[in-house]
């Protein structure tokens, strides 16, 4: 008995004293190894008389269990301590700057973003996107749109021309996106609901004009769409696009050869410190031209103006981008200065949606 108690005491003390895995292993071998002290006691059970074994068995097995448990506990403590010691020595400088990554430095041009915004709004209203070539015929850019030859309205367009071909016909760079209207009406039967964003060109260059710019045209042709609908579409568009609760618009009679009646639309705004705000203020800002499609245009594409009717509108994409996002000048749009693009551009995953909001 004394032996067992002493042995237990000594072994547990040795376990507790073991400071590393090697010394703990030495204690294990000394106690539980083949020739170990506890193993010796276990072996001695076989030579005992049944009564003695009955008495000594639990004592010796208990000793073994307690030693084993103490051993496991000590081992875990030593492993933890070793890991803690290792971790304590492992450090990085988390303040080191990392590369910002491509998603953070890539940018979309404001024109692309605004076209996506316009597409989201009109796509929801059931408008398709129609496109046409930049190099156009005089017929589609002017004649079919009811610009008579030599008419002053034609001269106001500052057209870029190409050299005449053998037949004396000269192509031109479209001066507006309206030829896409004509192409759409020639290619498709009513009902028609399209918007036509694209590049347009006029030979004009100053603070507010660049020889290339972007327009979006809208066209509706069916048997009943009238100016009241047009007004609603433009109102809803402006509210959605400028992301304001309300806008006040002013419709002024105007003139475009391809619409009759023709209207210019102003939007009420305030200008304070160079910042334009919609839905408030006393100033009027012209934002688009529109009207009912001229009967001559409908006739020119083989649509009976007494059966079908509709409206069209056009506005500058660059211009509404400037109004919404505050670029003060048009010319840098096309200068590809990365400082400007980084500042006014949009992050690659800022995909405008009606559900998520057009802008962040």
């Amino acid at each position: 008995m004394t032996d067992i108690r002493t042995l237990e005491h000594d072994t547990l003390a040795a376990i507790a004293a073991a400071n590393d895995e090697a010394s703990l292993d030495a204690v294990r071998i000394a106690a539980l190894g083949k020739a170990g002290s506890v193993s010796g006691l276990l072996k001695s059970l076989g030579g005992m008389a049944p009564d003695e074994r009955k008495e000594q068995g639990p004592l010796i097995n208990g000793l073994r269990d307690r030693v084993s448990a103490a051993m496991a506990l000590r081992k875990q403590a030593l492993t933890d301590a070793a890991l803690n010691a290792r971790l304590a020595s492992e450090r990085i400088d988390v303040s080191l700057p990392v590369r910002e990554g491509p998603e953070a430095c890539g940018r979309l041009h404001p024109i692309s973003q605004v076209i996506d915004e316009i597409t989201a709004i009109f796509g929801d209203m059931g408008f398709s996107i129609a496109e046409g070539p930049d190099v156009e015929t005089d017929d589609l850019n002017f004649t079919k749109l009811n610009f008579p030859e030599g008419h002053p309205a034609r001269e106001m367009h500052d057209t870029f021309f190409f050299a005449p071909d053998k037949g004396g016909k000269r192509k031109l760079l479209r001066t507006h996106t309206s030829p896409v209207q004509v192409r759409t009406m020639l290619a498709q039967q009513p009902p028609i609901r399209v918007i036509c964003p694209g590049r347009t060109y006029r030979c004009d260059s100053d603070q507010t004009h660049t020889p290339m710019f972007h327009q979006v045209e809208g066209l509706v042709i069916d048997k009943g769409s009238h100016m009241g609908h047009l007004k609603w579409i433009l109102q809803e568009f402006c509210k959605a696009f400028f992301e304001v609760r309300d806008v006040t618009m002013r419709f002024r009679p105007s003139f475009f050869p391809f619409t009759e009646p023709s209207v210019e639309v102003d939007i009420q705004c305030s200008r304070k410190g160079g910042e334009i705000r919609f839905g408030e203020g006393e100033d009027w800002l012209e934002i688009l031209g529109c009207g009912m499609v001229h009967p001559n245009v409908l006739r020119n594409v083989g649509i009976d103006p007494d059966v079908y009717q509709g409206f069209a509108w056009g506005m500058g994409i660059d211009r509404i981008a400037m109004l919404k996002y505050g670029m003060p000048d048009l010319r840098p749009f096309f200068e590809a200065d990365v400082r400007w693009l980084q500042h006014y551009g949009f992050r690659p995953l800022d995909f405008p949606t009606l559900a998520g909001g057009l802008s962040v």
Partner: protein
Amino acid sequence: MKFTLSWLKNHLDTSASVDAICEALNKVGLEVEGVEDKARTLSAFTIAHVIEAKQHPNADRLRVCMVDTGVGEPVQVVCGAPNARTGMKSVFSPPGTYIPGKDITLGKGVIRGVESNGMLCSAAELELSTDHDGIIDLPDDAPLGASYAQWAGFGDPVIEIAVTPNRADALGIHGIARDLAAAGLGELRHVNVRPVKGAFRCPVSVILDFDVLDRHLCPAFAMRLIRGVRNGPSPDWVQARLKAIGLRPINALVDVTNFMTFAMNRPLHVFDAAKVHGDMVVRRARAGESMVALDGKTYSFSNDHVVICDDRSVESLAGIMGGEASGCSEATTDVLVESALWDPLTTARTGRALGINSDARYRFERGVDPEFCLPGLDLATQMIIDLCGGEASEAVVAGAPPDTSRLIEFPWSEVRRLTGLSLPVPEMKLALTSLGFHVSGTGDRVRVSPPSWRGDIEGKADLVEEIVRIAGLDRVDAIPFPRLVDEVPKPVLTVLQKRTRLAKRTLAARGLVEAVTWSFIARDEAVHFGGGKPELALANPIASDLSDMRPSLLPGLIKAAQRNADRSFGDVALFEVGQVFLGDGEDDQRMAAAAIRRGTARPAGVGRHWDGAGQEISALDAKQDALALLASLGIATGGLQVMPGGPHWMHPGRSATLQFGPKGSVGAFGEIHPRTLKLLDAKGPLVGFEIILDGLPMPKAKPTKMKPRLKLSDFQPVTRDFAFVVDAKTAAGDMVKTAAGADRALISDVSVFDVYEGDKIEAGKKSVALAVTLQSTEKTLTEAEIDAVGGKIVAEMAKRYGASLRG
């Protein structure tokens, strides 16, 4: 078009304010561009009496004035003007007044120890002249306390409107008044033209010398002589009006023509009869004829121009400008007055060709009222006699105003059909008749005859516009636009449209910044990039380096990169997705996506960095951009071939053409050729790619959205590495394909994990290390089976490339 309020009131009986008039002008479509109302802007400046002006105690050049402003006690003002003196009348402004000529708001001040409570003003300070000599010195009878601007006659507000090309009639004040009257702003004052009874026959006759086909060039020409006139400066009220709208008074005869031009949209010409020789002939000019015009410049004519000649020479360019030789001066006693009709198109072309912009040209090219040709002559005759005296001859009239009368069948319902606005018939009818339209018939359909001055009115839609602009577009209610079908909107974008926008976001997500560059580039650049066709060269480019439609996006991007580099932003990565032009046909335009990287602008990051990067970009970075774009667009790249050697604007050994099949080139990537850089005045290193999005394979239509069932193997893949020594020119991409082809059933992946060229292996050779993954779907592979596949790979490599395993 400018006019003054008082001039308008000669034609419109109204008590409306300037604001109300402007609002009505906008409402009817005569957009107000500006109002200059000096009576308002200068309302704080009043006439004051200087009771006493004495020397400032502390300043030689200043006076201290006691000023009676007409209101309250006299105020003390310190004044620096040399002409300030006791007893004078001048113009006073109190503290708080904005001084336009100085762009300041006046405050109370203490000047050299003396309090000053306002200012005595110079004309320059009121922006009335550039006269800085001293304060305004007014006559003794100027009314104390009155508004100076009002008293001085600056009180007539000037309104400027933009007139659209269809509204020629609004280029006369009378026409503007008619619109305003129709809009309910007052009563139109009709101009009563008393026919002039000539006292004698006009001694000069007129011949319209035109072929039958040319008669439209001058349908009518009316003229008369007024003899015994006394020409000289016109009266103040005429001069004041002309000056107010920016015209320079010349003499009474000339001023009458300008007055009629603006009042009645009736341009006229006056010849000094003493300087006209023989009869007048109106004809096409002959090549070589020329004339010194009233602007002092000499113009040479061609057969395209129409002129008025006497026996000796050309005396006037029809409808545009008269000649100096026969112009009227103060010495003129006998005057020939011309009122004619000229062809709008010819007038416009002639004016454009000769570069003459005149008020007459502006009106004739938009179309004047043909019926007013003769009344206009009579009205002008009367005004000349009123101002200058004299005796009028009978008129000579060659040709006759064309009959422009027409009838438009008009159902009143058309207004509602096109605008959604329901208006009572009487209101609609009144709008038309007050604009001078004649409406005949009753009931739902009427016949409408437009007035002679509205040549722009063609049909029903024009009448709708007239009615709604007078009724007011604000009365058109916004009506919700119904969907065509009541359902969730269907997708509307085409494959190319979707690919275009996805391409932009993909490239931006790779750290590239989107540029939008000009669609036109310099000719030599276009030629270098495979374009420069004559049919794509602009006839009238805005600049010589923006002359030809671009065949590629790369030149614009490369130059943009260089511009950034010149500003010390050399490590740029730019892209553009936009149109390129192969020809001038409508199918010759393509949508291209291109990107360039410069300096160290690699996909992983730009510039030097502690993690050891900062390497220069290589053509393979551009390859990665190109392939990432294809992957993002969902293009299966199994059939994509990367053929060494791109187009000639790329480095021949560091570029490749991307193609699907032998003819299906869709683009290229590579390092930009040094010669290309030189041409574009750019410095490298620069790499880039360009892919024509229209050329990419279309997605296959599938009956459902289901993806193929995923088959996963229960057995573990094994990987074996092989390092082959091959000729340095061997394409690693080919070796990958060869290895993969050694056992298509078992080999699931081959990757290149090392390429080595250097002193550890034979010169001219390289080592290419492949990791080959084997994956059976049936069993766990034995060593022998794995070795067998390895053996096949080694044998194939040896056969194809003379490859040996690296020892």
